[in-house]
């Protein structure tokens, strides 16, 4: 329990750093966010209208430290300000439209990739220099070297655009309304296949290699040899003795990788016009919608921190040493 609380404390510090970065970045940089409002109008806004807007966006002349505390306070209340591009919608409302889809896409991809990669890693290490071990790591490392979005473009072009096997975008058909029924779920799955496959292919190699390498190290340890010598069934040795221990570093890596995979899935979303945070973020950047951009960054960061904490809980459950030490 103390372990988990300590981790929680750490994530709170991380969240505070992210918040502070978020506050100071725009204020340290050159440029005036209010000019961005001109973007869509191509300059047809009158100066009076501009001044009124400036006030609406809270661009006041208060001292910095005061703005900082006002900012912290409003973020704590879930107020991220108003979006410029979607004015006057609050940032939270805009983010809410696609947040579930990002979590769904990134979550599904990372879990599939982790499970599949780890399993393949176990197999690869157990059967060293078998055909899986010879070919799979290199192939996956090669695939992993491609930029996510590039793989996504190729998939979209070949499987979606040219062959017409998969939809070209969106999370579900435009004529369906969200509901918990077979049709809708199947449609969501159909739309998710290409993006998920892209992310899985690009990240599988990493899990495989790290699992394989730790497995090899663990397989060389005394207790594994002892278990073997005692004539315990090889599969049991592999799974209960070796894999379980080799899993620990991979689980730590899982937490780290979340942020990375999320970044990649944002890029993938853009290619597949998946209605998540990815395109929203890029659109916010392009239209200089700073409040929205920062809101998305913050929400993504908080989600990653929360997921990391969950991983810590899993880790605790997997590793009795920490469990014992902390109780």
């Amino acid at each position, binding site marked *: 329990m103390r372990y988990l609380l300590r981790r929680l404390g750490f994530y709170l510090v991380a969240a505070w750093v992210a918040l502070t970065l978020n506050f100071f970045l725009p204020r340290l940089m050159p*440029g005036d*966010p209010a000019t*961005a*409002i*001109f*973007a*869509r*109008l*191509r*300059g*047809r*806004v*009158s*100066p*009076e*209208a501009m*001044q*009124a*807007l400036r006030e*609406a966006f809270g661009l006041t002349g208060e001292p910095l430290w005061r703005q900082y505390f006002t900012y912290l306070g409003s973020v704590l209340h879930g107020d991220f300000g108003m*979006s*410029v*591009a*979607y*004015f*006057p*919608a609050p940032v939270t409302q*805009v983010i809410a*439209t*696609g947040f579930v889809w990002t979590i769904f896409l990134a979550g599904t991809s990372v879990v599939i990739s982790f*499970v599949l990669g780890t*399993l393949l890693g176990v*197999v690869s290490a*157990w*059967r060293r220099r*078998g055909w*899986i071990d010879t070919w799979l790591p290199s192939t996956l490392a090669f695939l992993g070297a491609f930029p996510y979005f590039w793989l996504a473009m190729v998939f979209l072009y070949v499987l979606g655009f040219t062959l017409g*096997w*998969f*939809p*070209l*975008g*969106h*999370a579900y058909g*435009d*004529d369906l*309304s969200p509901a918990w029924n077979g049709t809708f779920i*199947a449609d969501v*799955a*159909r739309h998710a*296949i290409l993006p998920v496959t892209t992310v899985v292919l690009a990240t599988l190699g990493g899990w495989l290699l790290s699992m394989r390498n730790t497995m090899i190290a663990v397989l060389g340890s005394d207790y594994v040899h002892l278990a073997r010598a005692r004539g315990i069934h090889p*599969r049991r040795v592999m799974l209960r003795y070796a894999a379980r221990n080799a899993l620990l570093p991979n689980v730590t890596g899982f937490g780290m990788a979340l942020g990375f995979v999320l970044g990649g899935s944002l890029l993938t979303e853009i290619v597949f*016009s998946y*209605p998540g945070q990815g*395109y*929203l973020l*890029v*659109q916010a950047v*392009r239209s*200089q919608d700073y409040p929205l951009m920062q809101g998305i960054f913050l929400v993504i960061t908080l989600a990653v921190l929360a997921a990391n904490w969950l991983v810590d809980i899993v880790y605790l459950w997997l590793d009795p040493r920490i469990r014992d030490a902390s109780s």
Partner: protein
Amino acid sequence: MRRRVRTIAPHLPVIAAIVLLAASACTRKQAATPGGVLVVSQEQQASWIRNFNPLTTATAARWPSLAGVYEPLFVFNSIRAEYVPWLGVDHEWLSGNRVLRVTTREGVRWSDGTPFTARDVAFTFQLMKKFPALDRRGCWGFLSGVRATGDRTVEFEFKRVFIPGFDEVAAQQIVPEHAWKDVADPVTYANETPVATGPFTEVRVFRNQVYELGRNPYYWQEGRPRFEAIRCLAYPSNDRANMALVFDELDWAGNFIPAVDRVFVARKEGHHYWFPLTGSSIFLYANTQRAPFGDLRVRKALSMAIDRDLLVDVALYRYSRPADATGLSDAYSAWHNQAIGESAPWMHHDLARANALLDEAGLARGADGIRRRPDGRALKYDIVTVSGWSDWVRASQVIARNLREAGIDASVRTYDFAAWFQRVQEGDFDLCLGWSFEGPTPYLFYRWLMSSATVAPAGTASMGNWHRYGSARADSVLAAFEREPDPTAMKQLSDALQQTFVDEFPAVPLYPNPSWAEYNTARFSGFPSRENPYCDPSPNKFDRGECLIVLTTIEPDTAVK
């Protein structure tokens, strides 16, 4: 070996299920949309946010809130260059042109059944006075009062005689007093369930990827619109919207699409486009407050150095044509004086004469081939443009190459929109690409190109006239234009403006932008086309209400439903 396979065996069903699911879903749905629903892609958004406020600023007030849900007093048909009476049926100038009286249409009802009256018009303008952020057209810059003088008449009192003010009043979208009078802050009001006079007012579906607007049961045009609803799809980029267009998922769109004949038209019968050159005109602006661009010869030389044919090929896939000397697009065909437009030899690519003019201006080439000003400074300039606006970036690249041939060391510099906009507005540039200002008459167009009143000091942001050129000759013609309600006299003044522009050549016209419009006649017919050019075909032409004409004209193909 078998042992190993078994370890992943438990997971095989999962993988197989995924593959099967993929295979079973392998057929793309062929246009399941009923004929009564017009599927449109007008703007690219990652996600829809529910907001049907037609008055709020810039970004949230857009089609179809404008010219779909809500309507203006008069619709401007830019192809026929005429006003179409809409919520207003007539207008007249009174009291020495100081008062504009607009007669509103009888029998119009809001979508909740309440009758529309002139008081709604007056209310809308009063609201804009109270909340300047809503006054996007700056109407209260020339108005001093607005009041309804009856159920069907509203009078606009002007601060001074300002005939072009009618264009701004006419384009204003009108909101209902009874629904808006209690809105505390109309600037941030999302107006999720609009009460309006337009053809489509009922929000039937609203999700982040798609929304649907059903027809207004009380629409004032008998029997129109002729179809059930419009459905707007969110695509994050032009490219994705174009794919949907190619795959028959859209009926109407207003996107730039490259190689349109090959990519779209040739693909299937029923795929059509029409790109009339009625968009804003694109100029090369040279900062006339900085030497040597104050010199007319230098600006003419710039113009002659540019190969506009190559420019429109490379930048715009030949969808446009080189501009003529007046800079006017086809949206001003009623005003455009062809003789004046063709009178300027410096609109043609002629490197030898460009070089001769630059030599004459005292800008001799140095040993390195780069020209020098008399004080010895090399002509080394950035063409500042917006990163990501690929047509502009390409055009700038062509211009930079052309100018280098004439001994001007030009290079392209791209900035983010905000940074670029700040730079050009404050006059912190030597050369830049920019747009023109559009209105029903050339008044606004030329005002922002050469009126002394629009010249801001360097360092102060200015909406237009970034090249900071003021012409006394233009000022007097513009002043006369502001006071002239007679069409024949206006035409003469317009000629004078064009002649002034050509003579003084304050900016270098490049090409008129096309108005983008693609449509699919599989389910709908009656779109404006080259053969039937009854108005501008683009859904992007909502600013002065024009796409309302399309929405109330097209009809679903009865063969489909």
